[in-house]
């Protein structure tokens, strides 16, 4: 007892430090050069020159418009699709199908999903091959700017297909907690159409519970780098992509402009969050007044059909995209407009085998280390909170979400600059620490509910039998929670595998994971290599989920109580 008393209370503090330390340090490292203070380059502030320089850059306003426009549009479209499919279909058999289709896709890394989409919608992609030359008469890929279109439409689409599964799963969890099915039944019995019943009685409570994930989606869409490199326009690109480009310039002075850009990026996200918050209130009031008027809106077949169609389209785009990566990775000669290559070959896999093997092992080492530390800290925190009667408050929840709400481009460049100024080594170890900032919140979010829902009377009984708190933890609680713990590990690995910017910046460009390698291929247009790396990246994220399903089923094959529940 004495030992555990002295050990556990340190963990929440340590976790908080690892979670927020890099974010805060990164912000400091952004603010200083943002205001012209960069002793490493012989510059001493404060001055507003970096901002003047930034505003003078002719691409500034287009980049800002693009970041805000694509980001807000992607978040709004994703939320609309999720709300419509839930309103029209939650609890039905069709919805069960959509859920089963979309949940595994949540783990597909952003970059792989974006490449897959690119392979579909490019002028030489599958969609055009499907209708050529029959409908179009094209014998050669048309000269159309679909990928990286200047308005960022393909970028928006690429973000939406990744956000819909995320928000949908978050909403499903929230609906279970608030008893959505019963509310819906009550409202429908009063003559409300399904969609109206759900929107009026279930959505407001569900939204209250997914507000933070929605804001994460908004912040992420406005500042994402890897998806924007693959699908976004390049002249100009989004502000975040531009910041990363300036960071990689050997001329240190460009870091000042990058830092100023990072601060603008942070301001844009904070501003968008504030406006979003205001719109939330406004729409909430509008909805309440509609509900007050008692509108039944019984004729909602079109909305329901539309919702289902959009959700299926999302799943279809993701699936076909992955299939496209698969086919390209094995493709021999493949001319337009053939639907399939002339021959299938292992050549691309052989050609990239050395590089891809190194990237696989680097990815595994980093994810393994980050997830091991993250899981240890999370379980330690949960157990410490248990033993000391603490509860994660709403404010604590915000702290947990903070690293996900602050755009990566706002603090990672600063963190890199700060590390360089302090003479700290960038590289693999630092990358693990940087990944931990994003892995920790997701492990916690994944493990929190199963941990809390565990029947505490099991612990009462075990202790009454004379088992110490440590014995209860190791012999009773952790084994019973094996399945959710492995799921949390899989979530953590998927998050780590997908990280692009922390790996690139904090690795000092020397740490090459599957994700950095895949994104680096974007500019080259070697579709076969992209197929290989995109598939490996997807496998690295998905395999742990398969294991998280299989291992508990094997370990507890003779334990009915754990198999069914």
């Amino acid at each position, binding site marked *: 007892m004495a030992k555990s008393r002295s050990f556990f209370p340190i963990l929440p503090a340590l976790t908080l430090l690892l979670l927020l330390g890099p974010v805060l340090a990164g912000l400091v490292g952004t603010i200083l050069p943002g205001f012209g203070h960069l002793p490493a380059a012989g510059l001493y502030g404060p001055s507003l020159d970096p901002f003047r320089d930034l505003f003078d850059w002719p691409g500034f306003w287009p980049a800002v418009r693009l970041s805000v426009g694509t980001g807000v549009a992607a978040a709004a479209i994703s939320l609309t699709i999720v709300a419509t499919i839930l309103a029209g279909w939650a609890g039905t058999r069709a919805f069960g199908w959509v859920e089963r289709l979309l949940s595994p896709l949540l783990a597909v890394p952003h970059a792989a999903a974006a490449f897959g989409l690119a392979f579909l919608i490019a002028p030489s992609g599958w969609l055009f091959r499907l209708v050529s030359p029959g409908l179009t008469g094209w014998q050669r890929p048309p000269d159309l700017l679909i990928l990286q279109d200047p308005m960022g439409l393909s970028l928006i689409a690429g973000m939406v297909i990744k956000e819909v599964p995320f928000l949908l799963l978050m909403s499903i969890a929230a609906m279970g907690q608030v008893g959505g099915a019963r509310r819906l039944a009550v409202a429908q019995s009063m003559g409300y159409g399904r969609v109206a019943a759900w929107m009026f009685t279930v959505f407001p409570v569900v939204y209250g519970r997914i507000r933070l994930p929605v804001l994460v989606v908004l912040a992420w869409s406005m500042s994402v780098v890897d998806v924007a490199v693959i699908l976004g326009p390049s002249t100009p690109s989004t502000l975040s992509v531009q910041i990363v480009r300036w960071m990689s310039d050997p001329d240190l002075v460009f870091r000042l402009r990058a830092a100023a850009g990072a601060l603008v990026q942070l301001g844009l996200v904070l501003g968008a969050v504030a406006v979003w918050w205001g719109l939330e209130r406004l729409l909430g009031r509008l909805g309440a007044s509609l509900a007050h008027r008692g509108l039944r809106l019984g004729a909602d077949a079109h909305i329901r059909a539309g919702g289902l169609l959009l959700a299926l389209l999302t799943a279809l785009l993701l699936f076909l995209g992955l299939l496209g990566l698969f086919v390209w990775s094995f493709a021999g000669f493949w001319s337009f407009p053939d639907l399939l290559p002339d021959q299938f070959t292992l050549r691309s896999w052989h050609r990239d085998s050395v590089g891809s093997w190194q990237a696989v092992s680097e990815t595994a080492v980093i994810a393994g280390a980050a997830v091991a530390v993250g899981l240890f800290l999370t379980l330690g925190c949960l157990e410490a909170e248990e033993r000391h009667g603490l509860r994660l408050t709403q404010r604590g929840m915000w702290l947990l979400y903070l690293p996900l709400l602050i755009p990566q481009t706002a603090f990672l460049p600063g963190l890199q600059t700060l590390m360089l100024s302090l003479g700290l080594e960038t590289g693999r170890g630092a990358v693990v620490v940087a990944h931990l900032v994003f892995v920790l919140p997701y492990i916690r979010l994944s493990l929190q509910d199963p941990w809390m829902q565990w029947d505490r*009377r099991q612990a009462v009984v075990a202790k*009454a039998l004379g088992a110490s708190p440590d014995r209860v933890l190791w012999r009773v609680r952790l084994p019973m929670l094996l399945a959710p713990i492995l799921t949390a590990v899989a979530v953590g690995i998927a998050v780590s595998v997908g990280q692009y910017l922390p790996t690139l910046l904090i690795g000092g460009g020397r740490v090459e994971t599957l994700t950095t390698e895949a994104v680096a291929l974007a500019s080259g247009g070697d579709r076969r290599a992209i197929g290989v790396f995109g598939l490996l990246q997807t496998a690295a994220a998905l395999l742990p989920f398969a294991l998280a399903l299989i291992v508990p089923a094997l370990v507890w094959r003779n334990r009915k109580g754990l198999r069914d529940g």
Partner: protein
Amino acid sequence: MDDHTAGLVLDHVEIRQAGQVLVQLNHRVKPGEVLTLMGPSGIGKSTLLSAITGALAPVFELSGRILLNGRDITELPPHQRHTGILFQDPLLFPHMSVGANLAFGLAPGGSRQNRQARVEEVLAEVGLEGYASRDPDTLSGGQRARVALMRMLLSDPQALLLDEPFSGLDASLRTKVRNLVFERAKACDLPVLMVTHDAEDAKAAGGEVITLGV
């Protein structure tokens, strides 16, 4: 230990929630006796049991002393109190076999064979020979209740707390399991504190009945 302190003593025990008194009790349950607590839901009967096992939630405040065979257990950590408890659900650990559940309860020490033999012996006592390797979730309700009882008794408790222990069982099983529990408690000379809604349970217990909240 003299006769005055033997058993479970609740010495001016009072549980408050947000300043409001929830339960008050000043009573001694002698070894081999049963005290039954009755009363409407939400009156704090189970809360009193958690205070005795040491699982009282932090929102409650406890005053007074709880003594078990002369030992003040009020401040002891739960696992050092030796207060066995049975709930409505048998709460067998689902990841352990029936035998492993029993061995988990059995006080430490002794060779592996001895422990195994003790487990088999106890199973035989309640008519469950050869059940050691079974998955607890494949047992019937009555079988689970018996395993839960024997697991608790193996841990060498000095008092027995019963939290509506028979309400999950159907009428025919109920009488059997109830008789078995009281018989065993008597044989081990344990003080028993039972919380129940059911007048039948109270009658079968044969001891004093206190109705809370009236």
